[in-house]
Each structure stands twice: as C-alpha cells, then as structure tokens.
C-alpha cells in the first residue's frame, strides 16, 4: 500500500536522470562544504595557537570563541551572519554577490560558508589542540635544546607530527559538514536540500523528493568515507615503518583524493 503510493518515476528520475538545476545544487553543496571546512581548519589553527599563547587576552578570546560557537545553535549563527552582520557592523560585510573571476556565488552562499566555517573553527580548534598535545613533549624539548625558537619548533617539528592525530577526526568533521551545509537553505541558498524542498513545495510529493535527496547525501558521505578510509589506511601502513618520510606519506595518502578530483573535473 505504502510503496504503491510512491511515485517511482519521480524517484527514478531524481536519482538516475538528475537535471541541470539539481547538478548545480549538488555542486553548491560540495563547494560550500569544502570552503567552509577549509575556513574551519584555518580558524581552528589560528585559535589553537591563540589558546597556547602567553598573552592572557588572546587565550581568553580563544576561549570565548569556542564558548560562543559551540554553545549556540548553528542555525542561529547562520541567520545571524546573513541577516545580522551587515546591520551590526554598519557596512556590507556580506556582499550581494561574490565574484572570484571564474567563479561566483551569491551573498547568501557566502554568508553560509562564513557561518559554517566559524562554527567549524570552534571544533577544529579542539581537534588541533588535542593533536598538538598528543605529540611527545620530548620533541619540543629536543627542538628547543637545538636553539630553535618556539615558532620554528612548532612549524618544523611538532605540527608535522600532529597531522597524524588531526587527520582522522578532521575526516569525521567533513562528513558532518556536508550534512550540516543543508541548513544554509534557510537563508535562501538552493543547495541539495533546498532543491528538494522547492520541488516538494510545488508538487506536494515529500516522500519522493526527500528520499531522493537523502540518497544523494548518502552518496556524498559514502564517497567521502571511502576516501577517508584510504587516507587513514595509508597513514597506518606507514606507521609500521617503511622508507617514506611522514611528509611523503601524508602527500601519498592525499594523492588519490587529488586524482579523484582531477577525474571528476
């Protein structure tokens, strides 16, 4: 009965014959997730270093950042950035459209990336800090005993080794990011979920469209988890000891991702 009520044709079309509107929506979901994740990692690094700073104000600022962005709902942050930021700062912080030459997006997508990135940065700060803490303290001592200032010791000795601890949770964060990016529909970005919602509102066929969009999210997260497993497997293999340096192993591990990216384009 229930299955008979499904319009199988719509579901079939959505999955096997996606139209160009849908493809654009899929592309938006991908670039919003990737750019927000990159922003999150950069912010996470900056705030992780502020957290370790000798200056109390920087440490407090870093704590406040995590307190706010982990302590309030993501959807509130997205609305605040999109609707509130321009009013609050008195100038157009979020432009109507953002143009990077070949690539342009509208202001809502830009605001969404900023908000998702800001939120992600709070979680990345904790992940990066834990990764740095996991590196044996003897490494920093050895670097310092050789006369390296803290900055160089961090960049050349500690961070490369922290990467190993940061990469697995970073992969999980990106998985969440792809799903959370659906929230930017509420500020008017037609990404995957937005596309489904618009189709539903014109056809009143929620089951077909939301089932189809769930399927596509599942494709995204599944493809990512295969890539992630590949990366982690390669990092683990090298831990058992081969002739590659850790730097080379990280590069190797990411190589299939870039190959995949080239293939997709």
């Amino acid at each position: 009965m229930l299955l008979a009520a499904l319009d199988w044709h719509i579901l079939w079309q959505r999955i096997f014959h996606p139209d160009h509107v849908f493809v654009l929506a899929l592309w938006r979901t991908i670039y919003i997730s990737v750019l927000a994740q990159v922003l999150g990692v950069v912010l996470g690094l900056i705030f992780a270093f502020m957290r370790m700073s000798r200056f109390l104000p920087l440490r407090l600022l870093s704590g406040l950042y995590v307190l706010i962005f982990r302590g309030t709902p993501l959807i509130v942050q997205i609305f605040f950035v999109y609707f509130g930021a321009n009013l609050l700062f008195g100038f157009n912080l979020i432009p109507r459209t953002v143009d990077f030459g070949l690539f342009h997006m509208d202001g809502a997508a830009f605001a969404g990336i900023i908000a998702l990135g800001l939120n992600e940065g709070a979680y990345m700060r904790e992940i990066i800090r834990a990764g740095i803490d996991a590196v044996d303290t003897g490494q920093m001592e050895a670097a310092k005993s050789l006369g390296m200032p803290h900055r160089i010791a961090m960049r050349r000795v500690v961070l490369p080794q922290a990467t190993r601890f940061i990469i697995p949770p970073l992969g999980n964060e990106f998985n969440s990011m792809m799903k959370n990016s659906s929230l930017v529909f509420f500020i008017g970005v037609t990404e995957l979920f937005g596309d489904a919602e618009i189709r539903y509102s014109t056809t009143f066929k929620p089951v077909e469209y939301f089932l189809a969009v769930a399927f596509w999210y599942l494709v995204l997260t599944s493809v990512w988890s295969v890539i992630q497993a590949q990366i982690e497997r390669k990092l683990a293999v090298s831990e058992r000891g081969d002739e590659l340096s850790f730097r080379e192993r990280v590069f190797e591990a990411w190589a299939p991702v870039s190959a995949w990216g080239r293939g997709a384009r």
Partner: protein
Amino acid sequence: MTEDGNVMFAEDVHKSFGRLAVLKGISLTVKNGERVCIIGASGSGKSTFLRCINHLEKIDSGRIEVNGHLIGYREEKGRIVEDTENNIARQRCEIGMVFQRFNLFPHMTALENIIEAPVRVRKISKPVAVKEGEALLARVGLADKRNVYPGKLSGGQQQRVAIARALAMKPALMLFDEPTSALDPEVIGEVLDVMKALAFEMGTTMIVVTHEMGFAREAADRVVMMDDGRIIEEGPPAHFFDNPREDRTKQFLSKIL
C-alpha cells in the same frame, strides 16, 4: 669561555616542583675541555640540574652562566627577569643536549635531523650543512644511514645520531642526560665509545649524568655525587671511586658497583 676558562658556572641554584624542593643550592664550575660526570640515586636532582643549564627548567633562585652569559634570565636595573624567547633560543645554540629517550624527529631522516637546526637557526647554507652533517654521521659511524628514518634505527644508532645532531650546532658545552639508560645492554658500548671519542679526540666540554661508572672512571676529569638536591662530594675519579669520603657516597657506590 670566560677569561678564567669557565664554560659553565652555577651558583646556589634552587629549584622546586610545587612543594617538593629538588635542588637545594647547587654550585658547580666546569672549565673548558673538562668532562664532568654527575652521579647519584634517582630523585637526587641530577637530571633536573642538567635541564636547568639550558633553561628547559626555570630556576627559582641562584644563577647559571654559560660562557659568562646568564642563562634564561637577564639583569635589568639590578633585578633579574626572565629573558626573551629569542635570546634564550640563541643561548641554547651554544649548549648541546642529548636525551635519555633520544628524541630524534621521526619525520626526518638521520641527515635531515642533523642539518635541521644548522640550516633553520644558524642559517648555514644547505650544501655546507649537508657536508658537515655527513662528516658528523661518519664520525659516529653511521655514514651509511644518512637517508634512514629514526624508526628504522636501533636505539644505539638513534642515540649516536642524536649526539651528531647536537654536535652539528658546534656547541661550547655538551649535556648528556642519562644517554645510555634507555638502551639495550649490548648497544650501550657503541654509544659510550662515541662519547669517549668526543672527550679524548675533540676535547669537548661535557657534563654527563650517568649510571655508567666504568665510563665515569675512564673518561671523567671529575665526578660529582648528588644526593637529595645537593652536591655532597666531588673529585677526580681515582680518588672518588677508591677513597670516597662521605658515607652516603660509599653506600651508593657499594650498591651500584
């Protein structure tokens, strides 16, 4: 080195971890080319004192000078304040340190470990640093391991690379913090041989915290006995091992020899 030939000068050094007093007034002078071995039971503060010399630990009071420069602190209008990080880093260039657990950088090859600080800190050009690094590897008997990562080296080999890494900065003073304590018995000899070569052939000034009494007897100019945060006895090894003055030293030696 100062005019009177002192490389290291420590005066009334005190250090506590919380309520636990670890160093209770250490004074020690080490002259250029001198080899000093510090012995004592674990918990006597010998490693902590060594770590104070290159300011890996902050001291509570007293003063430590290397080459006549106050370490970790500077005098400002009669008061002593902690020095800036860059100044401390610069001072540490003159003080090599070898750790019990080697602490080689696992993501770099043996040669990369050695040239990292000379290139990044001393700003020596890479070809020159590589040449010197290869010479150092040859000196510690590991010329064929230049492109091998620490994970593939035995403990003894890792420690020899660590010694070469410290020497690459051409320090005025070398500190060894129980360099053989984490090693399998069969490879201790190869590390001690490298250290003896440093002492006898290069005349390196060194302070060695060790439990290797054979090494102390053979290579040290002076042996220092620490107990409960104080230096209780010091002297040339012949006197020290054959005629110890203090009861505490006799007890310790009878247990360890």
